[in-house]
């Protein structure tokens, strides 16, 4: 494959301006992430220490193989909810290597509200287990949760994708033959008790771990029985008498060590084989991405330049380079894996939609995973385009995209507005992993456009009633709408609501995708036979 020839002037004014802007954006992101990961009220850290409990990230360090990467998912979940008091939704999930095995780790963060489960915690857990199911990833649970946050039970308990879905997913994983091991490091009450019970292997730490459907206070209230947590459902009860847990551990370190041994004995994965070659570092420095991403969502850039700083050797074989110019697609390699990349260079027209559909068929037939780099404001609108069948062509693109069997991976590089998000494999289209950049925005339409449109409607409505509004009054209507839209379309809001699997630093995209692709290959790629339709 040939190397992309870059046309970026890294010494130019634009580049430097963008770098300055993005450095600011990135440092804000890193600061937020660091705070979310580490800033805790002292009393919570003291409580952990008194309970002889390790901080969740220390537990992860004991669990994961040294010298290996860890792809953390949704680190900023719930960052805009619950007054910011539940960073990460009180859990740390990610994909890493344990005893040489690729696993998904789900770890309670008991330094946050004792690891309590808030609505978004449930969302994050369900999402993690969905990832495990879709990609057939073994799961290691490090459970240490105070249980559901009862005041919000209506959003935690009853619905299809609420708490029950966590256990349903665990059961389905088991049925699928995907192993799970749980290390009970704290009390697992009610729902929490099911996590180890539904895992194939359960390790429980003496003195700290507890498994009971009702905790001591509830038992006392219900039956009058006086019993300590340990007597009720501690290590010895469950490893010696009830058989609910399998391995007693003397300490957290011991328990995690045992979990590592258990993972080492999981059946070896049979990974799907796709085209792979020895990896090559990108030729262009990925940090140049900071000078390519504009400082304004309305400004355009060439997606090829982004691709060049993400793929092996910066090599890209462009498909239909002269047709459908607003969609760039072609083959490249990421960490050795051959992938089909689709990226936006403007709105989607008839030809770009059809080109995308054709290319996706090619990749699907040839077992080439798809990577979508979104920077899309939508499909083209207007009379001419409707006549040409823009809706129909958009439907072709969506139909093919939805129907491919190869794994899909999406990165929201910049804007992700309207149906463009759909065509380009947004959340609803089940990409195996979806990441966003901190500068990205997502909404049905741009905030400015939305604010203008809604304001216009309001003004027209009031005009019908005979009211005329002055500039300031119009601004007074428009600004709040704009601000609200902006807030809800920011990457931070999106990730807070778990509309993605995490904001990542642009330069980390290659690693994140490499790991994601590798993880996805634990599931088989079934292929429906069929020829390629040139639309």
């Amino acid at each position, binding site marked *: 494959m040939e190397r992309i020839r870059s046309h970026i002037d890294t010494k130019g004014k634009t580049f430097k301006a963008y770098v300055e802007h993005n450095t600011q954006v990135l440092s804000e992101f890193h600061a937020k992430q660091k705070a979310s990961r580490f800033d805790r009220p002292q009393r919570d850290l003291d409580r952990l220490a008194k309970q002889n409990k390790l901080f969740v990230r220390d537990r992860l360090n004991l669990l994961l193989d040294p*010298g290996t990467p860890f792809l953390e998912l949704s680190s900023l979940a719930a960052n805009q909810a619950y007054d910011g008091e539940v960073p990460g939704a009180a859990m740390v999930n990610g994909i890493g290597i344990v005893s040489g095995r690729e696993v998904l780790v789900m770890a309670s963060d008991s330094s946050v509200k004792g690891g309590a489960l808030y609505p978004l915690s449930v969302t994050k857990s369900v999402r993690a287990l969905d990832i495990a199911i879709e990609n057939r990833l073994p799961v290691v649970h490090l459970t240490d949760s105070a249980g559901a946050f009862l005041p919000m039970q209506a959003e935690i308990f009853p619905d299809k994708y609420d708490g029950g879905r966590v256990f349903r997913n665990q059961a389905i994983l088991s049925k699928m033959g995907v192993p799970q091991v749980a290390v009970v490091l704290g009390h697992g009450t009610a729902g929490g008790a099911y996590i180890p019970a539904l895992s194939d292997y359960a390790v429980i730490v003496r003195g700290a771990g507890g498994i009971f459907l009702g905790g001591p206070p509830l038992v006392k209230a219900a039956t009058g029985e006086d019993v300590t947590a340990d007597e009720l459902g501690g290590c010895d009860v469950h490893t010696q008498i009830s058989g609910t847990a399998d391995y007693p551990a003397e300490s957290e370190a011991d328990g995690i060590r045992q979990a590592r041994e258990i993972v080492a004995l999981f059946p070896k994965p049979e990974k799907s084989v796709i085209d792979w070659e020895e990896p090559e570092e990108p030729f262009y420095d990925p940090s140049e991405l900071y000078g390519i991403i504009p400082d304004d969502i309305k400004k355009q850039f060439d997606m090829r330049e982004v691709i060049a700083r993400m793929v092996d050797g910066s090599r890209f074989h462009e498909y239909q380079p002269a047709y459908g110019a607003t969609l760039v697609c072609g083959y490249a390699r990421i*960490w050795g894996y051959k992938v089909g990349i689709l990226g936006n260079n403007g709105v989607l027209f008839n030809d770009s939609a059809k080109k995308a559909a054709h290319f996706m068929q090619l990749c699907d037939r040839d077992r080439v995973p798809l990577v979508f780099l979104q920077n899309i404001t939508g499909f083209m609108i207007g009379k001419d385009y409707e006549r040409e069948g823009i809706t129909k062509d958009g439907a072709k693109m969506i139909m093919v995209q939805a129907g491919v069997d190869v794994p899909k991976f999406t990165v929201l590089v910049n804007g992700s507005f309207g149906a463009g998000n759909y065509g380009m494999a947004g959340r609803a289209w089940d990409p195996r992993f979806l990441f966003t950049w901190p500068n990205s925005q997502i909404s049905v339409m741009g905030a400015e456009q939305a604010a203008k449109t809604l304001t216009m409607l309001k003004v027209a409505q009031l005009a019908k009633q005979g009211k005329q509004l002055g500039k300031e009054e119009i601004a007074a209507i428009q600004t709040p709408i704009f601000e609200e839209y902006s807030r809800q379309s920011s990457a931070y809001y999106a990730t807070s609501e778990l509309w993605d699997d995490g904001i990542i630093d642009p330069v980390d995209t290659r690693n994140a995708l490499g790991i994601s692709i590798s993880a996805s290959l634990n599931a088989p790629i079934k292929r429906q036979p069929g020829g390629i339709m040139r639309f």
Partner: protein
Amino acid sequence: MAKITKVLIANRGEIALRIIRTLNNLGIASVAVYHALDADAPYAEAAGEAVELVGDTPVGAYLQGERILDVARQTGADAIHPGYGFLSENAAFAEAVEKAGLIFIGPRAKTIRLMGDKITARTFAAENGFPLAPSATLEDDRTAFLKATEEIGFPLLIKASAGGGGKGMQIVEKAGELEAKVALAASEAERAFGSSTLYAEKLVETPRHIEVQVLGDGKGEAIHLGERECSIQRRFQKIIEEAPAPALPDETRNAIHETAVKIAKAAKYRGAGTVEFILGGDGEFYFLEMNTRLQVEHPVTEMITGVDLVAEQVSIAETGVLNHAQDDITFEGHAIEARLYAEDADNGFLPVTGPLLVFEEPEGPGVRFDGGVREGTEVSAAFDPMLAKLIVYGADREAALKRLVSALEGTVCLGVTTNIDFLARVAAHPAFAAGGYNTGFIAAHEGDLKPAPIGEDELDILLTLAALSGKGPIDPPPAAPEPYASIGEWRN
């Protein structure tokens, strides 16, 4: 005299193998005897025939003169070579062999008796006017002994008359300690050798131990094959020897040679023997004792003279005639021997046991390795812990020293602790290179001879090697798959 066609070697280990080697060169058949522990030993395999000995103890097996004589008769051996140690200085055995009509490859029983008893040997030397360190003998009259020893002067050395190997020896620094130490030495000697006869001699402070190899025809003719320096000792045992002795004035050297020959002639010595002297810092030398057998360190003499001493022993036993006149013996170059012991040199030289898991012998020009063990040998507490002798030869002492250092580096012994590293540190020590050292060398340089602390780089390598050497109790995780392994330690 009868021709020797088959020799039984009443010994084991490296010396037995070395003797067999010469016998093979001479076209003489060999018979080995072995205790079960030595069944797989190289010497037992190298011999033409091998017969098992059973004894109360492994060492005891090799001391059964009667049984060994039986084996000799049964196998039709016409001579017995006793090696060193074991029965080599057992006059009764020598007599029995000759009485049985076999040839004892060694001196007459009479000579063995004479020189075997330290006191008779000293008396013999005194009577013949050979230089002796002032001494006194204790037999019955302890009071007289105590008085006589005072005349010797302090410090002095109390030795067991019937003993050797450092047992029953006590150093007395001053008069006040004398009585107590005499009592101690007497009881030790009684226990170890069955006789409490002691003698005391002046302790020449840190003397050099110089010995001379002699050959005698048994009829009063004798020649010398030069001296050996044997002053590198620990626990009164030699561990490095060299020939010729370095830093020795020719006058002294010649005087020592002459004295040794005179002693051998006076004793009408038959066969190969060694006359041992101690040389004081003042240049005075005194007769210490005569060993009526082949010595462990004989190879260094062989290297600089080109004479095969075992062949000489066989020849003299056969013909009763010396093959060489003194003028025939020429000395060329320099040889050094280092003894490999299974012991912990960093821990009081305590003997150790264990399997020889890896054993690599050094090779190369001027390198001779007399080993009695091979890879797989289980070094047990049953026998002397000497594993092998490394002998090097060079055109001069400097060349020999260089060879010694590199040969020691090329000697690999893993599985049981050995003194190889210690020997290397001695060989590399400037005081050794300078020559003129004495028996206090190891004590005097104790600090220098301790192993250097392990360097950081070395430590890293060692720990990595240990980790790679095999799985531990908790086996290491398998390697991470790609791309994880290449991505390495990364967090988003």
